[in-house]
């Protein structure tokens, strides 16, 4: 079947496969998950049905999925920036925490100001807090050559302790301070300071902000000099240095911006979902591991801010669905954490095929330029290329 062959070899088909690789990776992870479920004596179809129902079964369920997707998307946007700059930011958890602390402080301090103003200030404070917590490893990497993977992991641990300290001491809910139990939490935010809800569910304005920021980050990365330079440094720091780009400055900027978006994610969690900060002593107790899962979403979206939107919704759905799976078929939601890990491994592993096909495409183009094929065939190739 020569016609079919032509389809398989054609440029658009190969690009389509590239785009769908993450989907295949997820399917592969779900299949492995089904095997695990079978080993645990659980009917995988029942489990996955419960998962689907929990995530998309009703408008409330879908709203919940979007609520969970919001911090993932915000973290993912930051990850798009830093990974494009070849800076591996594992510090999303800590950056979310610090952003949330900054924002909460604003919300609890300026109680006399109008709601819209405090919300705006609080979001900016969250952005700033995350930027500081991401900027420190950035400076350490750029000027002291400290591996950012390690420093961001350490910064996570430090942020958790800072949170535990503040929430059980200086920022503790005054009504808790007198009790013997002393639950480590802040006071509740005033009702006028809550992020407005979009529809009568828990879905809040943060989701909309995140989507708009996704478009802004796309513009930043591909339509501005700043974004161009971050990507250039990521692709080839040496060439960038020769081209006169101050490489160190852009390494710091990449991590700083990355942290800022995670900080904003933390701020929206407080102002849109919980209306206070509370800690169980761990980072995931506050973040729900969004700092890690945001990395998964960004990778899944091929480090593209706009593609990160559906990716975040998918992983938000997995997280929400996991809870309903736990309720209905008694499969611990930890299964989804394990599956997320597999998705990451599969997505990065499948890169090799994308690169191979890219190389093949380039080789074909090169061949064409060197020895022009007979005119009618060449026309056909050009048609496909357009």
């Amino acid at each position, binding site marked *: 079947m020569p016609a079919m062959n032509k389809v398989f070899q054609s440029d658009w088909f190969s690009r389509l496969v590239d785009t769908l690789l993450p989907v295949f990776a997820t399917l592969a992870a779900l299949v492995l998950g089904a095997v695990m479920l079978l080993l645990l004596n659980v009917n995988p179809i029942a489990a996955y049905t419960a998962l689907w129902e929990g995530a998309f079964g009703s408008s409330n369920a879908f709203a919940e999925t979007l609520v969970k997707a919001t911090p993932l998307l915000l973290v993912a946007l930051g990850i798009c920036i830093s990974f494009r700059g070849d800076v591996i930011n594992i510090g999303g958890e800590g950056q979310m925490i610090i952003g949330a602390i900054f924002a909460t402080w604003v919300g609890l301090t300026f109680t006399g100001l109008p709601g819209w103003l405090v919300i705006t200030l609080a979001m900016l404070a969250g952005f700033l807090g995350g930027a500081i917590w991401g900027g420190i490893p950035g400076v350490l990497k750029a000027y002291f*050559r400290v591996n950012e*993977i390690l420093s961001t992991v350490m910064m996570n*641990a*430090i942020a958790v*302790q800072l949170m535990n300290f503040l929430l059980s001491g200086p920022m503790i809910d005054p009504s808790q301070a007198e009790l013997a139990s002393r639950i480590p939490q802040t006071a509740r935010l005033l009702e006028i300071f809550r992020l407005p809800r979009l529809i009568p569910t828990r879905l809040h304005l943060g989701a909309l902000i995140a989507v708009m920021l996704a478009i802004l980050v796309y513009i930043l990365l591909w339509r501005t000099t700043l974004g161009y330079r971050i990507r250039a440094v990521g692709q080839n720091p040496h060439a960038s240095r020769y081209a006169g780009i101050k490489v160190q400055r852009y390494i710091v900027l990449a991590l700083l911006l990355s942290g800022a978006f995670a900080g904003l994610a933390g701020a929206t969690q407080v102002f849109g979902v919980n209306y206070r900060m509370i800690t169980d002593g761990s980072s995931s107790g506050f973040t729900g591991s969004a700092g890690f899962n945001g990395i998964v979403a960004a990778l899944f979206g091929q480090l593209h801010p706009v593609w990160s939107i559906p990716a975040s919704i998918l992983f938000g759905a997995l997280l929400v669905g996991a809870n309903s799976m736990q309720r209905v078929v008694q499969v611990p939601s930890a299964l989804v*954490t394990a599956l997320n890990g*597999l998705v990451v*491994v599969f997505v990065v592993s499948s890169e090799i095929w994308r690169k191979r096909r890219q190389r093949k495409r380039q080789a074909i183009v090169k061949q064409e330029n060197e020895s022009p094929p007979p005119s009618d065939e060449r026309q056909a190739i050009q048609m496909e290329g357009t």
Partner: protein
Amino acid sequence: MISDLFSFTVLVGILASGIRLATPYLYAAIGETFSQRSGVLNLGVEGQMLLGAFAAFYVTLTTENLWLGVLTAMFVGALMGLAMAYVTVNLHAEQGISGIGFFLFGLGMSDLLFQKLLGTVETVRGFPEIYIPGLSDIPGIGEIFFSQNVLVYGAYLLVPIAWFVLNKTTLGLKIRSVGENPDAADSLGVSVIRVRYFTIILGGTLSGIAGASLSIALLNVFQQNMTSGLGFIAVALVYFGAWRPVGVLGGALLFSMINSLQLWIQVLGINVKSEFAVMMPYVLTILVLVATVSRVRAPAALTKPFERES
């Protein structure tokens, strides 16, 4: 009271638990040293440790055979290492990110198995202390160095062995050359792929023991996410120790001694905010990385996948 810290028994207690607490760091970080010296950054250590800790605990609980527990942990760690090796060596996957994937997998999987197979936190009778005849009777010294369990002794024994293998054997030379200049090593007939498979699987095996040392030798329980960042610190210790086993030992001891001090401060009820005490080792690690990293050079091929020029 601060002065309580300086009594003889407390000092001995701090040092003895410091020596003991270094155990998981040593196994994991020495394993990581091998894989990094061959050019592979394995960030999945934490996940390997968690699965190893669970495997060791579960097998020990059901069979009451501690050594079978350790063996299972080694096997699980080796399997994780094998998967990591395939993904990074054959498929050239970005090492840092695939490591995060393996971490998440181990985190979720160990939690899942814990909830499905155990359900509640139970305890096992772990490895007992072995009192070395004669030496363990020396006041202070005996309690600090010669009254530990077998996995603790093993961890310290591993350091000179690792040093010897890396620096004095052909295998070590191959590992180092693959990490510094894989193309040259390849042209001299060293199989880059085989060496890296070996070091990554070895690293996984040792991470498995590191996990086992937590669940059946030091704490004797298994809990969700019980390593809480320990595996990542082990990776940091490799940088800290400048990719040398002795340096890793120094880092592990520094870290565990501070940790032990921190625990004793809490036990004695000294008025230091416990959050800051817990934070201390992390802050210190960053500071030491700042002080040392710019002076030592990482293996030249670290994180770079190997592809034969065609």
